[in-house]
């Protein structure tokens, strides 16, 4: 499994050099997240990343715990994205079909097991299909599954970043994984690679 690590900032905390070190360490992951949040549109992702980086630079002095730098940067990126979405009169932080507890339990109850996609797809095919499936997800589902499953943040960290309850993160994760699994299975069947359990 790929590991996510957070190095100590080498330069003095709060200095511009320390900020650039922190940004440099996480720029690839931030770009990847921006790209997913923007549905795969690189120009939009770059614009979002620049905006978030400037906000982070302005607020860097407030970062007291240097080991929290990664989550702090991602929080700024995600909130910048949703602020921009809100400015565009889109209610990005809530989904009309978010499940309440009872509906979540019913959905969990209806789950049916299936063959695992990596049994039938190569790693490269799988990566491409997962990327395409992620981009096709509804916006809020995409953000949750990217932060938790791709970037490895905990459900609690994702809830803080997105400013939504943990239960909502859980139900969105479930729905996103269900869609991902179904899309991967469809792809495999189209490629005549699918074999049922």
């Amino acid at each position: 499994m790929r590991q996510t690590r957070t190095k100590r900032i080498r330069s003095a905390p709060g200095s511009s050099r320390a900020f650039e070190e922190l940004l440099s360490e996480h720029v690839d992951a931030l770009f990847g997240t921006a790209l997913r949040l923007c549905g795969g549109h690189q120009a939009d992702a770059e614009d979002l990343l620049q905006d978030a980086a400037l906000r982070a630079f302005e607020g860097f002095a407030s970062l007291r715990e240097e080991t929290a730098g990664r989550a702090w940067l991602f929080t700024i990126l995600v909130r910048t994205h949703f602020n921009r979405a809100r400015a565009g009169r889109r209610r990005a932080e809530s989904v009309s079909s978010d499940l309440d507890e009872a509906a979540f339990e019913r959905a969990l109850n209806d789950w049916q097991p299936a063959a695992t996609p990596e049994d039938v797809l190569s790693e490269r095919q799988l990566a491409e299909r997962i990327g395409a499936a992620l981009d096709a997800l509804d916006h809020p589902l995409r953000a949750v599954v990217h932060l938790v499953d791709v970037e490895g943040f905990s459900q609690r960290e994702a809830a803080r970043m997105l400013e939504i309850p943990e239960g909502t993160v859980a139900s969105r994760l479930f729905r996103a994984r269900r869609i991902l699994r179904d899309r991967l299975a469809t792809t495999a069947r189209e490629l005549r690679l699918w074999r049922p359990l």
Partner: protein
Amino acid sequence: MTMSCGKARRLLWPDAGPRAVTPEIEAAERHLVECEECRAFLEEMRHLARITHEVGPRPPAPRAVRDRLFQTVARARTGSPGAKQQAAARWAVVAATIVLAAGLAWVWGSRRAAERDPIASFADDHMRATRGEGIVSSDTAVVARWLASRLPFAMDVPTLPNLELRGARLCIMDGRRGGVVEYTAGGRSVSYFVVPSGPAVRPPARRGDDVRVASREGYHVAAWQEPGLVHALVGDLPEATLVELARLCMAKMMAFLDGPRPGREAAVTTN
């Protein structure tokens, strides 16, 4: 089994993290022991999370995106207003000319220099700089802003004793863009390079605050490193003076990061 599968799955949701052991959780765990479908569900959730994490898309930031990002941050750091686009365009033409000229000179020079110590390339660039263009200014802030708008990393413009700031320019080493601050000292020129580390721009062999020294055609080079960047002072000042200035640059760099450390500048002379 009195608990529904849906409730058991919600209570034992694998991403929830540590949870208190309540009677409800214990009941869900008992349910799990007896329910093969719930075990399969939880395993499938973990499995989907795992494969998404392992092979999910993580495209690296393209170099151009990275460069533009750090230039934006550098502009913010130096307080350069983003609206100076006409001036930026003018300087971009100048910089492009310099980069092209430096690149051509570098290609020409590298043909006959394969066996050279890479550190000697600093001396070569210093000599080429006597014909080069860039910004001419003795104002530290102006020079810092000029560099910040062109470099994908932070470059300090140190004030050095007995050296007069003359300006700055760009350099290209191994395809990597670096910055050069130019000084004069009693008619002699001194260049301060900061370039990204790379295969041909190897950092000094030893780590820490060691300064590596080399000479070429009467010019001395005092080089040191920090993570990702190589620094070098180049000039025809006495080697010991250059090393002392290099150590002062390092001290200023640390002071820039950690706070002022006065009292060292007076010890350096440029005879």
